[in-house]
């Protein structure tokens, strides 16, 4: 018997493709973020309100990831932005190859910001690099303030936390200060926004942050 050391990263294929995607986005000065959350937290609603807020100021494009259907792409397309739907057929997360294929179908030179809406899942998407500049995790008040502690990887790997559905705070047992404290225990560097897609509270502040990021990527 003999032992050979090979030291190969299991996700090296995905990582290499993600690096290609990142280079492609950077070359164009395109700001790309990966929008992650559990199902039903309001990722698509947030995206709709963000488009309404920004469509006269930035050229947005969207890649929609879902296990099945193109319902989300239909919703986003109504706002007149270019969108590509990726159907994973059961897979629990997007991978860099799927994003590369989807990006091929978009005119990247005609965009300032590309949003990748991941499959609704607070676990697996944390571990797959897609080539984005950063991850934005959405957590809604109806999910409870303990989620950052229960699903730490997602909050550790994200740069931004959007606490959504704040209009429901009077009706749900969610302590938003505890939620933010729990999130910061996991990741002290998180930038936190609070939004409601119904009242539109917080949407302008969140959108301004996107404008700043797009300007920095473009520089």
């Amino acid at each position, binding site marked *: *018997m*003999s032992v*050979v050391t*090979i030291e190969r990263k*299991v996700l090296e294929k995905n990582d290499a493709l993600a690096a290609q995607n990142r280079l492609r986005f950077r070359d164009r000065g395109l700001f790309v973020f990966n929008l992650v959350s559990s199902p039903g937290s309001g990722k698509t609603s947030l995206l709709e309100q963000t488009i309404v807020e920004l469509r006269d100021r930035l050229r947005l494009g969207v890649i929609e990831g879902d296990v099945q259907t193109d319902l989300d792409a239909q919703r986003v397309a109504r706002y007149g932005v270019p969108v590509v739907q990726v159907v994973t057929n059961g*897979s629990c997360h997007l991978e860099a190859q799927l994003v590369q294929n989807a990006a091929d179908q978009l005119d990247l030179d005609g965009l300032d910001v590309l949003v990748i809406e991941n499959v609704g899942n607070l676990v*697996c998407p944390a571990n797959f690099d897609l080539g984005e500049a950063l991850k934005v995790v959405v957590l809604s008040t109806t999910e409870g303030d303990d989620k950052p502690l229960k699903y730490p990887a997602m909050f550790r790997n994200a740069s931004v936390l959007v606490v959504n559905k704040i209009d429901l705070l009077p009706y749900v047992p969610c302590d938003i200060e505890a939620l933010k404290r729990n999130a910061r225990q996991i990741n002290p560097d998180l930038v936190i926004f609070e939004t409601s897609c119904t009242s539109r509270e917080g949407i302008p502040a969140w959108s301004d942050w996107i404008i700043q990021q797009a300007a920095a990527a473009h520089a």
Partner: protein
Amino acid sequence: MHEMGIAASVVDIVRQYVTDAQAPLVRRVHVRVGELAGVQTESLAFCFEAIVAGTALQGAALDIEHVPAVRACRGCGERFGDGAFLAICPACGSGEVPFVSGSELTVSELELDDEVETPVDDVGQVAGAR
């Protein structure tokens, strides 16, 4: 539940190595799985066995090394593992405590049986490759 894809990547890496190096039969595959890698190891072992069944790698043992998540404090140098997701140093209270290990997900070693050749197909690929 993406361990099937992870297991398939492990098997691809082993097959590629064996094909390129014309290595003898693989008896053991040593993988390192970090606590933060998001991989359920029982499920990985099950998927690995299912994928290699009926191929030249059938019977190879998957040897899984767990790598704990460890943080190191930038302020005082304290290293701590328990409850490593909480980003506060137990010694000095600093919040500057990056992880120094725990994200590993690698195929690190292969044990080869020098007495036995790996069966290859007529194009030199490891038999049973997808």
